[in-house]
């Protein structure tokens, strides 16, 4: 039974986190329940929490201790990253006992709090990115924000880049959120190896994610997702989801279907189309091997636009 926003859950959270005030619920986010919150001053409230201002609270349930430890490790790494373009991760805790009754919970609950950014998700702002120059600028900004993640030692992979996970501030800056399934490149991972596909959003998944080919999930998987995102912004529809009703169909098309290029669709210059095609190559080795090369191509294009 997936976790849902219920009065009981809200009660649990306010008991667990003294001073918590729930302000609203954004769009559903995968297996987790997400709230917009802040902390009010009170006798039991940690003053530091009040100072955080508006926060995003995410709660998930039923995750194994091993998986939580894995996520906590990623949170620690992201904390060390200290790069612009990501919300600050403020807090994470596991609750295995009901704080009110002190009865053990049937499932562990894992709570994270992160800085709430004053921004809109890209999914709400598609109309602002409907021509080559705007998409090129967006892509360049995204690559620059993600570069420290990909260049971390060991490298990290976001694995779920999609319009809902990209925020645009009123000043036009990009912020990447939902680092919940960030994975260390080369790490064994937590999904079962026999699962059909790994953690991802199928519409933006790379072929190696679609086939759960963990060995090949690298920063190049994120490049594929960014390519799809740019394609979708310019074409107005997802290159793989057209006419598909089932997730399996989308994933099968991610692996096999070669969409018409943006150039063939008359939607951008041949140069930009080639960059997107290279990012969306089915075989990872045919995508950009070095981020510096991609940035050089994007800067070259920006000079010509």
């Amino acid at each position, binding site marked *: 039974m997936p976790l849902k926003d219920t009065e009981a859950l809200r009660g649990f959270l306010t008991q667990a986190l003294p001073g918590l005030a729930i302000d609203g619920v954004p769009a559903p986010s995968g297996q987790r329940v997400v709230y917009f919150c802040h902390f009010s001053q009170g006798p039991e409230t940690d003053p530091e929490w009040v100072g955080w201002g508006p926060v995003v609270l995410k709660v998930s349930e039923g995750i194994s201790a091993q998986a939580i430890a894995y996520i906590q490790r990623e949170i620690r790494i992201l904390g060390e990253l200290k790069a612009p373009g990501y919300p600050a991760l403020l807090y994470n805790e596991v609750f295995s006992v009901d704080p009110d009754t002190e009865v053990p919970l049937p499932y562990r609950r894992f709570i994270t709090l992160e800085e709430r950014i004053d921004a809109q998700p890209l999914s709400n702002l598609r109309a602002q990115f409907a021509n080559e120059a705007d998409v090129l600028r967006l892509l360049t900004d995204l690559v620059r924000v993600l570069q420290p993640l990909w260049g971390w*030692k060991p490298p990290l992979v976001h694995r779920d880049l999609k319009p809902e996970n990209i925020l645009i501030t009123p000043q036009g800056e990009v912020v990447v959120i939902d680092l919940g399934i960030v994975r260390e*490149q080369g790490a064994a991972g937590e999904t079962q190896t026999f699962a059909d596909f790994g953690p991802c959003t199928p519409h933006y998944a790379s072929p190696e994610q679609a086939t759960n080919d963990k*060995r090949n999930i690298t920063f190049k998987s994120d490049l594929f997702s960014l390519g799809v995102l740019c394609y979708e912004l310019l074409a107005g529809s997802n290159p793989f989801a057209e006419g598909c009703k089932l997730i399996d169909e989308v994933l099968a098309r991610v692996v096999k279907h070669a969409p018409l290029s943006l150039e063939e669709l008359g939607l951008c210059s041949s140069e930009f189309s080639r960059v997107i095609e290279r990012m969306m190559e089915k*075989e990872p080795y045919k995508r950009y091997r070095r981020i510096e090369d991609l940035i050089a191509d994007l800067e070259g294009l920006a000079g010509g636009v």
Partner: protein
Amino acid sequence: MAIKLFHQCGHNAVWNRESFVDDDCGDGLILSPVHQNKNSIESLPDEVKVSSFFDPQFYLPNSQKPKLATYDFFPEVISDGFATADFALRALDAARKCVDFQAENDFCRMVIPARHFADMLPDYTDRQDAYAVHPFLQVIDERQYEGDVFLTVPMTRAMVTHEGYRSGLLNWITSYPELSGVYLLVEDNRTTKQIQDADFLMAYMKTVRELVDVGLKVTVGHANTEGLLLTLIEGCEITFGAYENTRIFSIDKFVVTDEERRGPKARLYIAGLLNWLQYSQAKQVQAEMSELWGAVYNPTTYGDGALAAAREPHFGNPSLYKHFFLNYEEQVRALESLDANGRWELLRGWLLSARDLYDEISGFPIDLDKHGAGDHIQPWLDAVNWYKRTYLG
């Protein structure tokens, strides 16, 4: 575009060094710890070191070859008897010592070693990662090494020809943006000295081309004279060596103990035939087909000296190899001056000419032995023409 040509050092690496230094032949040396002890490499002149690189040769980690034992980072040495499970604890230490050795000697690039696997293991890349790639990259990062970093990639014929497996390896290699290039070794257990299988040759060329296409420099180690064909791939660096075990990669050289005594027959490189002829048969052609000899033999003082000897030279006579080095370099430099289409035209011309000359020798008749005969020419023509159609338009 320049073509780098490295000496693949082996037994008597001093010949390679003399050829490089005294004859100004080749662009540098690939140093071979199985043949050169640590002191001999450390004592090379600085000007040789900066043009050369060191192949750590971790291919067979428990090799008992004595010269490898002079390197304290070799897996068998550092583990005091290699065992895969124990080496996991030693891999980082080995990487530190090996990286420092390469950096301190100021070689022209850093080489990450690899283990040789004869089988197409499903976890080939995981094993290579644990064995050397991850520890070496960690140390290279710690040491802030700024030179080119090359990854050794040993492949078998089966790995090269199996498209899916090859793609898997390419995906793995390209997942490391820290790499500047690949030191590629292709093991082909065949019964002929020259490659005579056009399909394999095409897959081989395709592999190199795919690596170059993703922006990697590629040095093809242990290349035989098929290296000339690889010059069609701009950005590919090739190698040449003296004894056959420097021109055909085999893991055997890390176990064989008496190769010096089991030497093959002496052979002389004949540039116009793109092959090595048995010395005695070369002498027959020289004596009885003087006009053809003039067309196929490219004279050097070394070759002339060997041919003038009263007795057939031993296969360990350096003149045979120094003649080859000079002839081969001349061929490479002729190709180097051209663009890819020009190289194809020149190579095709050489191959067509060699085919005619072989026919003439056969019709004379002199029946060359199976390794000196021209059975490689047609497959090579097929491969260069395929490359032209596929990549050069």
